[in-house]
């Protein structure tokens, strides 16, 4: 038997973007449902769990108990093993995403959101009244406005006419694990480059308190034939952290394309990974997800006039995203396009030249200048892309 439920807004996908969108929409006075396929919010964690300080504070009030580690610096290890420490390069946290998402879901329900877990929405179709019907299991959720926060798969968006299908070169296929080992570098985010370690991608090791770390490995989708991320990750761990205790091995796809225009179509909005909001260089997506969720939820709530959603007003969400993070995301995409062309030899050369002359104030920019000083043509190419 079909159960029909009526809401002002339906948010599909209970990751950070969806939870925040539902919270702000409910706080704005709307009747909201948040629907998630998983039985329990935040589990399993498919993420390195790093977020910059700014990314947090602009969208969500951070809770002390979410923080597993404070990150003070980044370190980049070249293919042949030269480590370059970038002091003051990063100020952020490694967070317990499971705890964070559970707490945030509680906030959402406190604000009035009705939360449905373990429900997989198979279709979203327009109804004759200008709204949408979202079908999942035995239930049909009717809503005037739908926020799609379905993550990397972005399938419902595709069914509604968005070209969210990813090219193999616009995807990192990733495997993650938590490890415990004495060699874990405290308060650091360490990135390992090298085409034999992670073809077209990199390995990251993020300190997660004590001797534990999140270790992840991403391979460019078009180079996965050189090795499956899961196997490459286990190989890396056994080499760098021999005998480490490994737990929570999971995997994910990380979209590395341009964010999807338009973000809004006839009462449907895309947020987070579903909209391909991802820093294509660092792989950071939580800050984008939180921002887009907040913006979409707020704008959607404001677009209701006398109980009716004015679809034309939803476009303000895209404007907010474009002016806040949109350009940065597009730049990261251009940069990624150049970086996938870097050879291991080139990266080793750069690491060598930096480690020989360690600058007092080393920034990402100064590394770039050093890196390209002997390759002016490459620099020109990068400049053109980033303009």
């Amino acid at each position, binding site marked *: 038997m079909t159960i029909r439920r009526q809401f002002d807004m339906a948010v599909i996908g209970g990751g950070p973007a969806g939870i925040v969108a539902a919270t702000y929409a409910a706080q704005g006075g709307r009747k909201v449902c948040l629907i998630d*396929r998983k039985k329990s919010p935040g589990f*399993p964690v*498919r993420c390195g769990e790093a977020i910059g300080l700014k990314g947090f504070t602009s969208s969500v009030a951070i809770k002390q108990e979410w923080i597993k580690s404070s990150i003070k610096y980044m370190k980049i290890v070249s293919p042949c093993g030269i480590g370059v420490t970038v002091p003051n390069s990063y100020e952020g946290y490694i967070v317990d995403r499971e705890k964070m998402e559970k707490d945030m879901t509680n906030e959402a329900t406190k604000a009035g959101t009705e939360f449905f877990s373990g429900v*997989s929405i*198979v279709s979203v179709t327009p109804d004759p009244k200008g709204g949408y019907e979202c079908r999942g299991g035995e239930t049909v959720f009717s809503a005037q406005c739908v926020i799609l926060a379905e*993550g*990397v*798969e*972005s*399938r419902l968006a*595709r*069914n509604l006419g968005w070209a*969210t*299908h*990813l*090219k*193999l070169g616009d*995807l990192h*296929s*990733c*495997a993650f694990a938590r490890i415990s080992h004495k060699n874990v570098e405290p308060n650091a985010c360490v990135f390992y480059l090298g085409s034999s370690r992670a073809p077209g991608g990199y390995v990251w090791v993020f300190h997660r308190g004590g001797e534990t770390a999140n270790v992840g490995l991403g*391979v460019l*989708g*078009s180079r*996965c*034939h050189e090795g*499956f*991320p*899961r*196997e490459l990750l286990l190989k890396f761990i056994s080499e760098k952290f021999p005998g480490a205790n490994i737990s929570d091995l*999971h*995997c*994910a*796809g990380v*979209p590395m394309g341009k964010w999807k225009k338009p973000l809004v179509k006839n009462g449907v909005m895309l947020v987070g990974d579903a909209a391909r909001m991802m820093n294509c260089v660092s792989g950071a997506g939580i800050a984008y997800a939180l921002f887009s969720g907040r913006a979409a939820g707020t704008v959607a709530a404001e677009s209701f006039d006398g109980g009716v959603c004015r679809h034309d007003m939803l476009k303000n969400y895209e404007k907010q995203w474009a002016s806040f993070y949109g350009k940065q995301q597009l730049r990261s995409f251009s940069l990624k396009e150049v970086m996938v062309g870097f050879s291991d030899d080139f990266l080793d050369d750069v690491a060598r030249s930096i480690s020989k002359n360690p600058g007092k104030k080393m920034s990402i920019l100064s590394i770039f200048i050093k890196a390209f000083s002997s390759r002016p043509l490459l620099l020109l190419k990068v400049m053109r892309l980033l303009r």
Partner: protein
Amino acid sequence: MIDVNFKLCDECATCISVCPVDAILLDDRIMVDEVRCISCGNCVSVCPMGALTIAKRDKTNMSAAQEGPSQ
């Protein structure tokens, strides 16, 4: 046609994001629509766990169906 090794599959949905014909659905578990699937192998390439394989039987089945006395 695609074979799924459910012991390895982590239900991360990466395969769905690269399927050009929307043949993959994740409900209780991954399902591949045999009619839509064009055996392009995108999903097999990007599966982080190596849980997907192209089953050879599709071609033999197809040719058998074409040649077979189906009337």
